[in-house]
């Protein structure tokens, strides 16, 4: 299997990861698709230097999250202040209004968090362990734990206030 075939397989197996990051760091369909494409491109660029012995998901999260930060520079917008286009979250064939509403609310709450907290909560929602989050974010495991509980409290407050 050549490098391109291997890359295609890796991307296809992890397309959800890239797509979810693209959703959380943008607020319009155009930006979302732009970021999605950019992440795939940055992954392709660094794929030859990816060492098989390190964890694939750690490498992917790093590239995808780092690309998302620099994509903010391109859009030159403050995500938290601009409402999301409804279509950004509406990509399924079946329409489940309750799920869409919940998704919208979840998006809104996460958007209010800082860049660092947003990345950490995304990794937590993705079921990553504290060790994995620490490796991707570049903090100590204990710091991740402290921050996670702080973020969870912040989200609880936000949710309570929005009720």
């Amino acid at each position, binding site marked *: 299997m050549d490098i391109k075939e291997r890359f*295609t397989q890796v991307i296809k197996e992890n397309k959800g990861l890239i*797509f979810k990051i693209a959703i959380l760091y943008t607020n319009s369909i155009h930006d979302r698709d732009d970021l999605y494409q950019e992440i795939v491109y940055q992954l392709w660029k660094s794929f030859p230097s990816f060492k098989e012995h390190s964890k694939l998901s750690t490498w992917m999260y790093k590239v995808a999250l780092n690309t998302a930060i620099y994509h903010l520079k391109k859009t030159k917008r403050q995500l938290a202040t601009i409402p999301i286009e409804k279509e950004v979250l509406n990509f399924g064939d079946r329409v489940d209004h309750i799920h869409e509403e919940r*998704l919208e609310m979840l998006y809104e709450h996460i958007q209010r968090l800082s860049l660092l907290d947003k990345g950490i909560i995304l990794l937590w929602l993705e079921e990553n362990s504290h060790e994995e989050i620490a490796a*991707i974010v570049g903090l100590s495991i204990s710091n991740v734990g402290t921050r996670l509980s702080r973020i*969870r409290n912040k989200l609880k407050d936000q949710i309570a206030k929005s009720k």
Partner: protein
Amino acid sequence: MELDDMKTTWEMLSKQIDNQEKLTNQLIERVTAQNFRSTLSRIVYPEYAGALVCYAGAAYLIWNFTRIDLWLMQIFGIVAIVLLIILPIISFISVRELKSVKFSIQSYSETIRKYARQKIRFQKLQTLNIALAMIVMLTSIPVLVNIQGKEITSIPYFWTLLFPTGIALFFAFTFWVLRHYNNALKEAEEVLSEIND
């Protein structure tokens, strides 16, 4: 919505994404092609366009320098030429920083820190750019008039209308830009203090 609900909603989103065929072979084909242009690299296009304008202006002044007959105008001309050459260099410094980012090696917090620092430096450079642009404008206008073989005082309404209007517009623009920069600067500083927390 509770935190557990958040996780459930996220899981549903994951399933939904896995089920849809958003990613096609064509996208990977396009991205892996030799001639694919990164959208991030397009950020630098306005910088290149600005540099081109500055260098064209500098070339025009150098080309016509012998036609400037007054010594004061010659000094103004030299100042304008030097600044027109320096301004793009300042912009290119920020472009070079963007290109130095290692997406696959740096950790997320490291990238945020670097991004915020770059933003702060960029805002400061832009403030310097505005001040220099003001000097370029003030020095190049009389020089350009002199190159045309005219006296600045011979232009109708120059001192009474054109000059004050130009200055007022420039100050209004500068005020607006600086206010925007200061807000961006504050945000970047907040990001840094939050990450160092």
